[in-house]
């Protein structure tokens, strides 16, 4: 038995499908094709709102830095936060523009490479966001309390309080790493939690890099 004999069996299967498979046009016309438009609109709206919020934060931080340009203890934490926000905005715009230009009707290997490269970028962005999030609390509290309540955190709580917050961030990070490693291998959790855990633990990045390697191999293998 070889593939060419199996091809004849497959042709028989194909003929049976002619009689057996029916397109549910009622469902297609009723909801599905409209749903495609609605889902895209909703997604664009969500991404739009996210970008507006991030841009708002960048502008607020920019104004704060302008006011406290001469005071490094306020300027530096605001700059760190602004840098993070700008990186997130750039990453978001890049992803949205790359996804909107993606043509699924292009050859399989090229599209899969493009999709997997986007996936690598997304995983790296998620990983760094999760990695830095426990430390963001300290600069956020310095900038927010100063701007909203005119409270100088350095003077009010002391440098040791700030140091303790950074240490607490380290502890939270260690706990997050431990939890993500456990959850990444568990199949019992909701897909978003599992995906974040696998992103943070590095499993998804390894899988994406492996697949990119397989695609290159598949493309160049000749004999």
């Amino acid at each position, binding site marked *: 038995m070889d593939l060419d004999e199996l091809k004849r069996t497959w042709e028989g299967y194909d003929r*049976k499908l002619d009689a057996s498979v029916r397109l549910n046009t009622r469902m297609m016309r009723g909801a599905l094709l409209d749903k495609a438009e609605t889902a895209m609109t909703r997604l664009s709206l969500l991404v739009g709102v996210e970008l507006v919020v991030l841009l708002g934060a960048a502008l607020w931080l920019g104004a704060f830095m302008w006011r406290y340009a001469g005071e490094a203890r306020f300027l530096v934490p605001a700059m760190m936060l602004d840098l993070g926000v700008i990186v997130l905005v750039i990453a978001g715009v890049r992803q949205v523009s790359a996804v909107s230009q993606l043509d699924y009707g292009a050859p399989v290997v090229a599209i899969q490479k493009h999709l997997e490269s986007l996936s690598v970028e997304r995983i790296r962005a998620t990983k760094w966001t999760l990695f830095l999030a426990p430390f963001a609390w300290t600069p956020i509290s310095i900038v927010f309390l100063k701007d909203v309540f005119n409270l100088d955190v350095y003077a009010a709580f002391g440098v040791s309080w700030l140091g303790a917050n950074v240490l607490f961030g380290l502890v939270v990070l260690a706990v997050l790493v431990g939890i993500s490693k456990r959850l990444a291998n568990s199949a019992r959790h909701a897909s978003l939690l599992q995906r974040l855990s696998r992103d943070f633990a590095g499993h998804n990045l390894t899988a994406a890099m492996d697949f990119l390697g397989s*695609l290159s191999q598949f493309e160049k293998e000749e004999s």
Partner: protein
Amino acid sequence: MPAKPTRQDQFLILLEEHKKILFKVASVYCRNRADRDDLVQEMTLQLWRSFGRYDDRQRFSTWMYRVSLNVAISFYRRESRRSRATVPADDSILEVAGEEIDVVMLSDELRMLHRVIEQLDELDRALVLLYLDGNPHDTIADVMGISESNVGTKIGRIKQRIRREWSRHSTGEHTNGSR
């Protein structure tokens, strides 16, 4: 004077003509019916979203294979990474008379073929499907985006693998039968 068909009408007519591609791609990449229904829905949505970019100088089937396989490979990779957490849809885009399909599915050759396909990676599955559907090497190369000679090499390797699997399968049956 009859009304001019809308873009949606044109899409549905072409989809009706090539609906078997949806079913075959889904059955190559999914083991159970719920997954197959989800994948058919994803492929159909993407085909409709991409239809605006379809150039009708190209064969619709070639374009449809590309879109469907791209969606299916991404779906397969996503599903194999995570556990199933979705509820099966109530309604299916493709309605299948299960009995008739099952009769064919019972053939030993086809079951063996599905077993072999399940052992292939996502890219080789696409190649085998395109080959079994009777596409010439240049069309397969065009859909996959690799050279024709590369298609020939890969199909040759898969043929060897199937021959080995079949002889192992036959030897196993013979041994069991003689006990």
